[in-house]
C-alpha cells in the first residue's frame, strides 16, 4: 500500500536562529515604509522557497507553500474581494492565534486571482508536487461579520463558494492535481452539513482533473465521519488528535474516499512514536477501499516553533518508513 507523506497547510515562517528571522525583519521594515512592496515580496519568495526545501528535505512527497503570505486564513481571501473589509482580531478556534474578521457589506466579487499566483510561484521552486490550500466557503462565512449583501451566513457561504470556484478552476488549469479546502468551522456546526455540501459542490464545480481534499481540524471529527463520506469532494483529511474513537470508527465503517490521516499533532511539541502511531495505522489502513492514502500533520505546522515543525515532519517520515519496512 502506498502511504504518501504530505504537509497539511501552514509552516512556520521564521525560526529562532538569526538567519531564519528575515521574514520578521522585512515585515517590520515594510510596516515602517523602509522597504518597498516589491522588496518584501522578494523576501517572501525566498522564505517560500526555504520552507518548501525544508519540507522536501524532511521527506515530504507533497508540499505546500507554508501559507507564508497569509496574514491569516480569513483575511487573506477577503482582502482581494469587492464588498468585504477587514475588522478586528478574533481567536482562531481553540488556538492562541488570532485572525482578522472579514466584514461583508455587499455582494462579494473576486478582484483578481488570490491563490493562483502563489501556487505558480511555489511550483516553480519545488521539485515535488505542490498542494494549494483554500479556506473553505462555509468556514469563511462563519468567521465573517455579515452587514449586507446577503440575508444569512448560509447565503454568504454560497457566495464565497462562487469566489472559490474561480480559484479552483484556475488552479486546476495551472496544473494543481490536489487542492486542499479547510473547513474547520463545520465541526462545531453539524446542523449545517447541507450548507457545506451545497457550498463545496459549487466551489468544486469546475475542478477538472484536480481532486479536492476536504481537511477538518481543531475539533473531534468522529461524530461527523459518516456524513463526510457523502460530501462532493474526492478525499478527506482528518485531524486525529481530538478523536480517540476515530480509528475504531474508520475500521468499522471503512472509507469509500481516500483519506489523509492527520496523525502527527501539529499543536504540541511532543514527538509521536511507533507505539502511538502504528496501532492506528493497523486499525485504519485495512478499512480503506481506495487510495492513495496520505500521512500528514493534524493541521498546519505554524503553531510550532520552526525547528520542531521540521522534526515533526522527519518523525512522520521515519514512522512511515518503519511501518512499511516492517520494523515493528
Amino acid at each position, binding site marked *: 500500500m502506498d502511504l504518501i507523506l504530505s504537509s497539511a497547510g501552514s509552516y*512556520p*515562517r*521564521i*525560526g*529562532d536562529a538569526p538567519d531564519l528571522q528575515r521574514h*520578521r525583519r522585512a*515585515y*517590520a521594515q515594510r*510596516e515602517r515604509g523602509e522597504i518597498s512592496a516589491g522588496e518584501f515580496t522578494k523576501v517572501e519568495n525566498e522564505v517560500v522557497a526555504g520552507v518548501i526545501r525544508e519540507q522536501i528535505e524532511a521527506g515530504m512527497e507533497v508540499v505546500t507553500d507554508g501559507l507564508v503570505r497569509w*496574514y*491569516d486564513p480569513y483575511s487573506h481571501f477577503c482582502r482581494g474581494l469587492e464588498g468585504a473589509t477587514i475588522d*478586528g*482580531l478574533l*481567536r482562531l*478556534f*481553540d488556538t*492562541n*492565534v*488570532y*485572525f*482578522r474578521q472579514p466584514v461583508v457589506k455587499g455582494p462579494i466579487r473576486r478582484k483578481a486571482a488570490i491563490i493562483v499566483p502563489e501556487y505558480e510561484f511555489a511550483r516553480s521552486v519545488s521539485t515535488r508536487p505542490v498542494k494549494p490550500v483554500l479556506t473553505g466557503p462555509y468556514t469563511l462565512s462563519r468567521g465573517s461579520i455579515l452587514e449586507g449583501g446577503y440575508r444569512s451566513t448560509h447565503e454568504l457561504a454560497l457566495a464565497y463558494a462562487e469566489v472559490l470556484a474561480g480559484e479552483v478552476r484556475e488552479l486546476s488549469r495551472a496544473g494543481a492535481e490536489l487542492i486542499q479546502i479547510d473547513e474547520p468551522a463545520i465541526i462545531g456546526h453539524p446542523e449545517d452539513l447541507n450548507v457545506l455540501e451545497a457550498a463545496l459542490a459549487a466551489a468544486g464545480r469546475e475542478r477538472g482533473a484536480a481532486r479536492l481534499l476536504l481537511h477538518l481540524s481543531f475539533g*473531534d471529527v468522529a461524530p461527523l465521519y459518516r456524513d463526510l463520506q457523502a460530501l462532493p469532494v474526492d478525499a478527506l483529511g482528518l485531524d486525529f488528535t481530538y478523536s480517540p474513537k476515530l480509528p475504531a470508527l474508520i475500521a468499522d465503517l471503512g472509507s469509500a474516499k481516500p483519506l489523509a490521516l492527520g496523525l502527527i499533532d501539529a499543536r*504540541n*511539541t*511532543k514527538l509521536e512514536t511507533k507505539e502511538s502511531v502504528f496501532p492506528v495505522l493497523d486499525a485504519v489502513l485495512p478499512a480503506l477501499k481506495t487510495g492513495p492514502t496520505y500521512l500528514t500533520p493534524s493541521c498546519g505546522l*505554524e*503553531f*510550532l*516553533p*520552526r*525547528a*520542531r515543525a521540521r522534526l515533526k515532519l522527519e518523525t512522520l517520515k521515519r514512522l512511515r518508513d518503519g511501518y512499511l519496512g516492517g520494523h515493528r
Partner: protein
Amino acid sequence: MSRQKLKRLGVELPLLPTSTVGSFPKTPELAEARAKYARKQITRAELEALEKKATEFWIRAQEEIGLDVLVDGEQYRGDMVAYFAELMGGFQTGGLVRSYGNRYYHKPVVVGEVKWPGPMTVEWWRWTQSLTRKPVKGMLTGPYTVMDWSFNDYYRDRRSACLALARQLRKEVEALIEAGAKIIQIDEPAISVRQEELPFAIEALHLTVDGLPAYFITHACYGAFETIYPDMLDLPVDNLDLAISNSALDLLKIFEKDPFTKDLSLGVLDVHSHSIETPAEIKARVMRGVRVLPPERVWVDPDCGLKTRTVEESRGKLAAMLTAVRELRTELA
C-alpha cells in the same frame, strides 16, 4: 451566602463592590525602562525600583478613584502564563511562535515534572497590601490556562499536565493565604476553548482551592457564557467574573433556565475600546445583572485586564464606573 463568607474572613464591602480584572497599563516610565532592561542598559534592581514605583502609582490611582478591592496592576509581569512558567520547575522557554501579523512570542514548554519554586507572587502581594488599607486581591493564572498556553513534552496528556499544575499552584494559594490574602482571583481565560475539557478544568481547580479559607474569584474572558454555561457553575469558586459589556446576552433568559448560583462580577467596561463609557451606559449594564440577581451578589468591574489601554483611558473608564456605581448604591438602598 458569600457575603457571610467575606464577613467571616473579616472583609466588609459596600453594595456592588468594585474591582478590576488584574492588569493595568505599564506607566510610560516603566515601559521605557523595560525596553532598556531588555537591551541590558539598566540593571534588574533599577527595573525593580521602577516596577515598585509604578505599582504604587496604581495603588494611589485606585484609591483616588474609589475602587473597593484593589490589585497590584501586574506591573512586574509580562505574559500571564510565561510569568509563572519562567519561575516554576519543569518548564523551558520554547521557540518562537506567531500569534498574529508579525507578532511572535516564546511559548513555554513543559519538559519535566512541574514544581512550585516557592512563593511567586507573595512578596509583591505583601508589599502592595502594605501600601493600602483596602483589600488587595491575590492574583494567579489557573492550571487549565497555564496548561493550554504551554506545550507539553512531558505529561501523558493535557489532563495529567493540568492536574499536576493544579497541585503545584495550590501551594501558591496557600502561601498567599498565609501572608494574609483574603480574596484570591484565579484567572482562566482559556477555560471555554474546549468544552469537552471543562470537567478536568473543574477537577483541577478543586485541587487548587478545596478547603482553603479565602474568597475565590475566577475571571473567564469573552465568550465563556455562551459556550460553557451552566456547566461552569461547577467551578469551585465564590465569584465568576464575566464580560457582558460587548454582548447582547439576555441574562434573565439564561438564568431563568439555569439559576446563577454564585456571586457575579459584571464586566461592564469594554477594555478593547478607546472611548470612555458614560455613567448612564454603565448603569444600564449593571442593571442587566441586578434585575436578575439580588444586588448583594453583584460585583462590578471592567470586562478584562486594562493593560492595552492608556493610563488616562483606564482612569477615565474606572472613574465613570465608580460614578455609575455610587448612583446605583443610592438608588438601590
